[in-house]
């Protein structure tokens, strides 16, 4: 995309100071250096944006808004673009993970055996929708497709541990031990 005069001028108005030297990898608020190092590792190339976001998520466990703004500013990639990518791919998350991760299977077998009722029960129990994290950071809850043990349906994984033959009446109790 080539820049014509007024457009270029406006971009400078919108993000003043960007024309200056890029911030060095050592300075900045806590953690900014680590993000800048990720950018350096990928040659500060906008074309590497997905790899950069993956590394950023590996570092932070999710994609914090502040870091996305930093990446946007440093690589001159519009924040709208980063937001589009981060919301398009399921691998990226914009909310932090809780201490315990619940992955509820909603694959065919689990679905047939009432996974959606279990989902409703969990959502009511921990008061967040699938894909979210509780305010006290206790649980992250997401639905997944198939955990590969349809014979135990319906199933969920909590912190990598399988909880099988669920039903909507007892799932709350199963989650109690995770503090």
């Amino acid at each position: 995309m080539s820049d014509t005069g007024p457009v270029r001028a406006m971009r400078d108005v919108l993000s003043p100071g960007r024309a200056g030297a890029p911030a060095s990898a050592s300075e900045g608020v806590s953690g900014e250096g680590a993000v800048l190092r990720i950018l350096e590792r990928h040659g500060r190339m906008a074309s590497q944006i997905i790899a950069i976001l993956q590394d950023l998520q590996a570092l932070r466990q999710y994609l914090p808004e502040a870091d996305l703004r930093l990446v946007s500013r440093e690589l001159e990639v519009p924040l709208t673009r980063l937001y589009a990518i981060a919301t398009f791919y399921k691998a990226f998350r914009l909310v932090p993970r809780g201490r315990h991760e619940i992955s509820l299977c909603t694959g065919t077998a689990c679905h047939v055996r009432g996974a959606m009722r279990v989902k409703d029960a969990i959502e009511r129990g921990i008061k967040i929708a699938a894909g979210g994290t509780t305010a006290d950071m206790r649980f992250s809850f997401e639905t997944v497709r198939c955990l590969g043990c349809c014979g135990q349906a319906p199933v969920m994984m909590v912190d990598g541990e399988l909880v099988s033959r669920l039903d909507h009446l007892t799932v709350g109790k199963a989650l109690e031990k995770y503090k």
Partner: protein
Amino acid sequence: MKFVLNGKKRTAEAGTTVLDAARSAGIDIPAVCAHDALQPFGACRLCVVEVRERGKKRPRVVASCLYPVKEGLEVETGTPRIVKLRKFLLELLLARSPGAPYVRELAAKHGVTKTRFSKLNDDCILCGLCVRVCSEIVGADAIGFSQRGIGRKVESPFGIDHSRCIACGACAYVCPTDAIDMEYERVIELRREGGEHACRYTLMGFLSDAVCSLNYECFRCEIDQKFRSEAHTHPMLAKKQPRRKARA
């Protein structure tokens, strides 16, 4: 470049899209997401045509806004197959935005007045005109797509971020279904925040260093009135930039 359009021999420059070539030959192809000032996007798919490349047996269905004219290409714009596809797409649009007069008229023009699908009542048809105007012409990148599939929508990052919006209104102007409302009250507030901001015409490159003397009430702005009445377009689009790249 020689090609055949609806049985007639035509010539067009290399890099011309089939849509442009057909339109300059006076053939009407419906296209919602195509805009002269913007890069082709291929979102609405209403511009589908049948093409048969040289040496190929079967015709293929392609989006003409993205498909470049090729030597010896045979294009058909109104075959029963195309008409059927177009009607189907219009039914989908009608189901999504049954309340939008633009969609209803477009559908009716092609003989679609009913839809078999359940209605959604979202005026936004995700044509991406607003997103592309904001990015390609305005250069602000204040709005973009988010999510995907049935959840896809146009919004600003994190839903509330408006820091890059210059309130030029180009998105609302270009929106075919009037799905974007300019919140003038908020625009004024936005501009007043933290002292005086440059006039949007300054940000667009029309004026130098102007700070709005009208309290950012754009409807009172002379430049605005002039553009609307004389150029019949949005100032940002009146200043159309030669950014349309020839596609190889």
